[in-house]
């Protein structure tokens, strides 16, 4: 068993969750504040799409964007000297895109469950909208937001299809745990694969327990 897939996976998943967390919160807040129900529905559909599409389809779409022969990928390469495909950055992009809907949907649900009267009351008290978000909406939505974050982290850690499409399976570079398991099994090394499997099992189990802990944890003001 090599350490590199574990390290790459942890690095990828941590970076991806940081991005997903911020993007998901931001998107959720924008959607919740939006007035037109129609726009809301369409945007929500687009933002949720990565959750329901097969990861390979997402990978394909990402290739259309970042491929070196595509306008955007070509632009990055020509002017900034950045090549996304088959790089470690690509694993982060794949994990972020795939785990984003979990974060976004959990955060949105949590924001929407905050009693509207509280927000109205805060506004009549002269509290700025930004302060309302950080002092009232966020603390009240925290269990849902944290739960979403943990789920998104787990999903990012397990990302396979889109990663394989856009980042490839390069040893010591883009080979994450799921890819390493696939590679070992394909090569007939069941034993090596099983070590990785145990690690993934352990991490996933801890994550699920953590989620439960957050959702069940009694907040002291509810006592």
């Amino acid at each position, binding site marked *: 068993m090599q350490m590199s897939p574990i390290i790459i996976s942890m690095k990828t998943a941590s970076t991806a969750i940081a991005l997903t967390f911020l993007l998901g919160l931001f998107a959720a807040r924008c959607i919740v504040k939006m007035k037109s129900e129609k726009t809301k529905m369409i945007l929500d559909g687009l933002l949720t799409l990565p959750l329901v599409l097969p990861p390979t389809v997402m990978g394909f779409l990402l290739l259309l964007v970042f491929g070196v022969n595509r306008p955007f990928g070509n632009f990055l390469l020509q002017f900034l000297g950045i090549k996304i495909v088959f790089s470690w950055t690509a694993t982060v992009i794949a994990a972020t895109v795939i785990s984003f809907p979990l974060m976004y949907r959990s955060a949105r649900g949590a924001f929407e469950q905050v009693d509207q009267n509280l927000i109205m009351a805060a*506004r*009549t008290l*002269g509290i700025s909208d930004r302060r309302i978000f950080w002092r009232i909406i966020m603390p*009240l939505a925290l269990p849902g937001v944290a739960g979403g974050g943990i789920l998104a982290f787990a999903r990012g850690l397990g990302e396979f299809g889109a990663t394989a499409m856009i980042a490839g399976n390069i040893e010591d570079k883009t080979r994450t745990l799921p890819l390493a398991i696939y590679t070992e099994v394909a090569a007939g090394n069941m034993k090596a694969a099983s070590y990785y499997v145990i690690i993934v099992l352990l991490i996933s189990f801890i994550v699920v327990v953590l989620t439960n802990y957050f959702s069940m944890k009694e907040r002291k*003001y509810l006592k």
Partner: protein
Amino acid sequence: MSLLIDIKKKVKGFSLDITFNTDGEYLGILGASGSGKSMTLKCIAGVETPDEGRIVLNGKVFFDSEKKINMKPQDRNIGYLFQNYALFPHMTVEENICIGLKLSQKEKEQKINQMIESFHLTGLEKKYPNQISGGQQQRVALARCITYKPDVLMLDEPFSALDSHLKEQLQTGVLELLKLYEGEVLMVSHSRNEIYRFCKKLVIVDQGSSVLFGDTKQIFKQPKLYTAARITGCKNISRCEVLSAHSVRIVDWELTLETEKTIPKYIKYIGIRAHDFQMIDIIKGKDEKNVVECSVKKIIEDVFEYNIFVENKKIKKADSNNDILYKVKKDEWDNRIDKENLYLKIPEDAVLLLE
């Protein structure tokens, strides 16, 4: 407070059309549940936006759809006591009171101590809202509003969430506390008693529309409109036909009233409050005007009075529309011998002429 409102707003299956222009320190909005009272307050506070119209409070234009003015709620300086108090559940009593204060730490502490003391909340500073009673929650919410010295304090059904035995006590308490706040109050309620007690001026709202506004006592005395009479608690209302300037036929009760005062032609309904009938002796009753001989149909007992449902004896076609409700003190009724028949006099003062 001078308040000018002229707004329209469509809400799911309901349209709000409120127009009134009034002044007075204590203003009440009276209407049935779901008549659009709270929505009106929310539009004034700025947390809901009307589709069109104008809201001007004390000369400040809060909203004007033509001039594209829509002041942020944060800038309107309105205190809003929500029906469920809307205390922040994750903050302690003192955090709730001071969350919006823009003062130095020391000034804040002073202010909080002062509010805690005036609102009888000593010892509860570190408690969370759901660790304290409903009455205490209400005082916290009130303290929170008043801390910011709002120009106008709006109370949304302030006593509806409380047990009835607490209500009396708290109403008096709140009146005391409101004295600490030297500003104007706008209160919304479906309870006639609350409005009558607290408010000098009154607006009546029915099914999303403002139907009448004016002096509270005046409106209760002479509601002028059918809806206003019903909302101010008149139990007996009947269609009527004006026969002449001094006589009117009450259709549902099949009797004719004669009056000293002139009855305008446009009067369509007659209302008589259940307390306003006079029970009189049969012998005297023969000579008096406007006396109905009634038979008792049903008696419902309350704590201090009886609700007696009677019917004009001369009635030809009987149905429940003909019922007249007469409320009488218990001892007065208990002393009577004949509990089947009675003579009710309708004093002229008691007759509400309604459009």
